[in-house]
């Protein structure tokens, strides 16, 4: 049974084009030029309860639009959405009371007053029972150290602290699904690490289903067994992270330090990609070449001082996908 199901989603925005200068401004009033943006173009995927997926893609790919449709904020042009068996547009109140949403770029906390006031408000909006509220706050304190921040006005929090506040405010009511749209944007390593730890824990402890969008592949690598890659409104990859990387960037690279390089070294299915004074780089596919045999063949011809095997780079793989899309 899938907890989220999106079938053939399309979403189109119509925006008025603004042209420069006075003439453009006048034209904008009387004969506005409209352009159609296909933000989502046939998006389908589904998720099982307790899954974490990483939704990645370049800026403007349609990640936030997907989340807004799944959370009932936007109406799709066509296609079907089911979240916990309900249509989020038709049963908005029911759906939103069982999900949590964080938009990393848009604060949902009250800026001028202490963080705790926002929490207290959400406690009332979602009618959270006292025990559950206290237990959740306790858990959040152990994961994110939130109690120390509760009496500080939101405007005085650092970005990392505020993001912790945003996240806590989204999980106080123990949502079944958590949507995190760029929760690590602009954060330092330590803050990112905290948030990653939190995501992992809440997924394990509460079986919360999580959709995470991010530009930080470290987040994905650490958290998401499954990856959905979206570009220009289309899903172009959907599968296990390892499998995607392996399929797209199957090549590993062997780097050799030697006294004297041999420029014309060859071996079946391998390629010399670079050669310097006393270093050589050879790429090979682990499907059909064994690293040890390659090294044995090499050492017969040159003296190896040092060697290193580089795994395929996830960044490279993603870059390659974006390039194709």
């Amino acid at each position: 049974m899938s907890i989220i199901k999106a079938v053939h989603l399309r979403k189109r925005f119509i925006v008025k084009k603004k042209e420069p200068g006075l003439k453009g401004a006048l034209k904008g009033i009387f004969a506005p030029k409209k352009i159609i943006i296909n933000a989502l173009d046939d998006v389908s995927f589904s998720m099982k309860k307790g899954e974490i997926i990483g939704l990645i893609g370049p800026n403007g790919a349609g990640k936030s639009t997907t989340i807004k449709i799944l959370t009932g904020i936007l109406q799709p042009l066509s296609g079907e959405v089911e979240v916990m068996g309900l249509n989020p547009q038709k049963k908005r109140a029911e759906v939103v009371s069982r999900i949590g949403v964080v938009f990393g770029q848009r604060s949902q906390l009250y800026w001028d007053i202490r963080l705790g006031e926002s929490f207290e408000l959400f406690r009332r909006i979602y009618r959270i029972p006292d025990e559950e509220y206290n237990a959740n706050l306790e858990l959040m304190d152990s994961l994110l150290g939130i109690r120390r921040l509760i009496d500080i006005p939101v405007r005085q929090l650092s970005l990392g602290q505020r993001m912790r506040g945003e996240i806590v405010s989204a999980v106080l009511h123990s949502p079944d699904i958590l949507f995190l749209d760029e929760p690590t944007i602009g954060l330092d390593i330590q803050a990112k690490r905290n948030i990653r730890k939190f995501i992992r824990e809440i997924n394990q402890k509460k079986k919360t289903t999580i959709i995470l969008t991010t530009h930080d592949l470290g987040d994905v690598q650490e958290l998401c067994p499954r990856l959905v890659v979206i570009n220009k409104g289309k899903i172009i990859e959907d599968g296990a992270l390892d499998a995607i990387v392996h399929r797209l960037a199957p090549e590993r690279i062997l780097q050799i330090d030697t006294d004297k390089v041999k420029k014309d070294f060859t071996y079946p299915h391998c390629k010399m990609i670079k050669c310097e004074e006393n270093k050589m780089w050879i790429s090979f596919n682990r499907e059909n070449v064994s690293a040890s045999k390659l090294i044995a063949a090499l050492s017969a011809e040159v003296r190896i001082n040092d060697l290193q095997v580089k795994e395929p780079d996830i960044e490279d793989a993603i870059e390659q996908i974006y390039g194709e899309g």
Partner: protein
Amino acid sequence: MNKYLYIMRIKIISHLAYDIDVIFPLLLNFVWIITMTSIWKYVYAQNPDIHGVSLPQMQTYAIVSTLVGCFCRHEVQEELYYRMRQGTIAIDFIRPMNLVVSWLFEDIGNMVNNLLKNFVPILLFAVIFIQVPLPQNLSIIPLFVLSVLLCALLLWLISLFFGLLTVVWVDFGNLGVIRDPLLKIMAGSFVPLWFFPGWFRKVSDWLPFKYTYQTPLSIYIGKLSMTGSLAAVGIQAVWITVLCVCMYLFWQKVKKRLLIQGG
């Protein structure tokens, strides 16, 4: 219900966040009382009775107008404009609550807040420096209070109307620039409409603005007879009903639009 009351509370606290933001709006109310009563003194120096209203009555009108004005300061229009520009308005839909009701309670919070912060100081200021603003007849006080509450609701609906219009016509910017001069002149909060030329009064009879400030204030100073007062309060109620229905329909349209277009 509880959640809406808490929204009210949050509004009250956020307005107490900065002390300067408490003092200067209060000061502005003092300044207004001085300006209005000074003008009336000047004007009345030549005629003791204008349109059947005496100087003390007119000064009472000015003081009570300031009191009512400090109470009825709503933010729904500015808030909607701000959220529209920031693109955060659609995001508000992820909370399981009625947005219009939550805005109403934010503004009730504002009103309670203004009452707590401003009412007593303004009244004290007026009593010490101008005069005690007594009503013409103590028995009309319940009707006056009812009329002020209706005035507040009417002003809020007008603000909501301009706020929703802002959402639809966001390219036109902050539509407060349309609402404010309309209210400043047509509501009679400063110069009552009986000073204006006949054609102007005829137009204003058919608009809701006059039934905001001028109605409760006229009742208070005894400018309206008992039957006239009852009729005016009745018209206030009619306008509120009409605007409520219109705003409900308008909101359904705006909601649909936001759902399709996003913030």
